[in-house]
């Protein structure tokens, strides 16, 4: 269980270009941060650096737990969810097969699948192949993984984009519930989040 995320003077370079440098951010349990920035400012790269998928040029990402510091490796293998542009869903598999596989992979919880299906209204979609889903339905399936496997830090990259207004509000409720249960959310967004969130801007200096 992660209760804190500390990013200190992080710098990330992609393809020989410095995206941002000296980025600091502290996130505590129950807090959400809405990360904004121009296209190409490095929002996605920041989330991927926190998830350990890219090695930063400089700076450090630290995770804290209830009993002090948590090894980055442990935090990444059990404590965080990443939702990116590429959702990792296989188009030829059914929604149910994908949801149950990813729930097993990310650490299943008792009743987690049922909760996820209910929260994202997936019941009528479960037998469909992923390629038959609309963009919004597919995003709901991707988001359902957050509910199916409880992990405290959510790294969300444009989570709301393809969702309709009612679903955005509903996901907002789910995020609020996650925060009140001691969760942490770091979301890269262009539209405001449907929950109170601290704002952080990336790439201003550049």
């Amino acid at each position: 269980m992660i209760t804190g995320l500390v990013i200190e003077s992080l710098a990330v370079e992609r393809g020989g270009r410095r995206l941002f440098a000296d980025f600091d951010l502290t996130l505590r349990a129950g807090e959400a941060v809405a990360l904004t920035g121009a296209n190409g400012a490095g929002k996605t790269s920041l989330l991927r650096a926190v998830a350990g998928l890219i090695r930063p040029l400089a700076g450090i990402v630290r995770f804290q737990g209830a009993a002090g510091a948590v090894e980055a490796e442990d935090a990444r293998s059990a404590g965080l969810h990443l939702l990116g542009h590429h959702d990792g869903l296989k188009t030829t598999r059914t929604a149910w097969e994908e949801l149950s596989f990813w729930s097993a992979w990310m650490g299943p919880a008792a009743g987690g699948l049922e909760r996820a299906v209910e929260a994202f209204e997936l019941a009528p979609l479960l037998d469909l192949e992923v390629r038959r889903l609309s963009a919004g339905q597919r995003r709901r399936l991707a988001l359902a993984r957050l509910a199916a496997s409880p992990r405290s830090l959510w790294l969300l990259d444009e989570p709301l984009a393809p969702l309709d207004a009612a679903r955005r509000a509903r996901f907002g409720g789910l995020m609020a519930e996650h925060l009140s249960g001691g969760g942490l959310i770091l979301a890269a967004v262009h539209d405001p989040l449907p929950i109170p969130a601290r704002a952080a801007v990336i790439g201003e200096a550049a």
Partner: protein
Amino acid sequence: MSALASLLRRELALAWGRGGGPLFACAFYAGVATLLPLASSPEPQRLASLATGAAFATLALASLLSLERLFERDYEDGALDLLTLGDAPLEAVAAVKCLAQWLATGAPLALLAPVIAVALGAEPRFAPMIFASSLLAGLGFAFVGGAGAALALGAKRGGVLIAVIVLPLFVPSVVFGAGAIDALASGLDWRPGLVLLLAYCLAAVGLTPFAMAAGVRNALG
């Protein structure tokens, strides 16, 4: 552990799902083997002397076919990102993917190998031996091929690059595997060949997951 088991099930389902990749590999194998008598000579005597060797060399080629998709598919759609965030280490993920490659593609090819060798003129009594060494060699092909696939990950024209990286590394298993069959056919002791093939495969299974994990991390970062 159950997470890795469900990954194996998913990999097998994806391999055998829509498109039936292993069937294409088998069709390719049969096709190349059919070209051989047309290209060399249909004379049974000459063909029979080539049969096991040709069956083994074309097996190596057919094993290359689906390697490109081994990591590429998960790399493109983001699944590889999420696989790194599971409880299991990336080395285990890579090993499971190669194991699935062996079970889904290597095993059907190994079943086909004796059929092809016999069709080309090998004696039917060698069929079990041909199957055994093809199956074992397939394990080596899957893991060594997986290392090539991980190294070529993200590169343009990765499939060709994989073939160029991996074919030289297939040499020992072809030499030992075909050698064991040959030894049996000439009434010599076939065990050393098979044991060396086994050693090669075990080394591949034990070592390549580390190379694959490093290759995948490099491609993601």
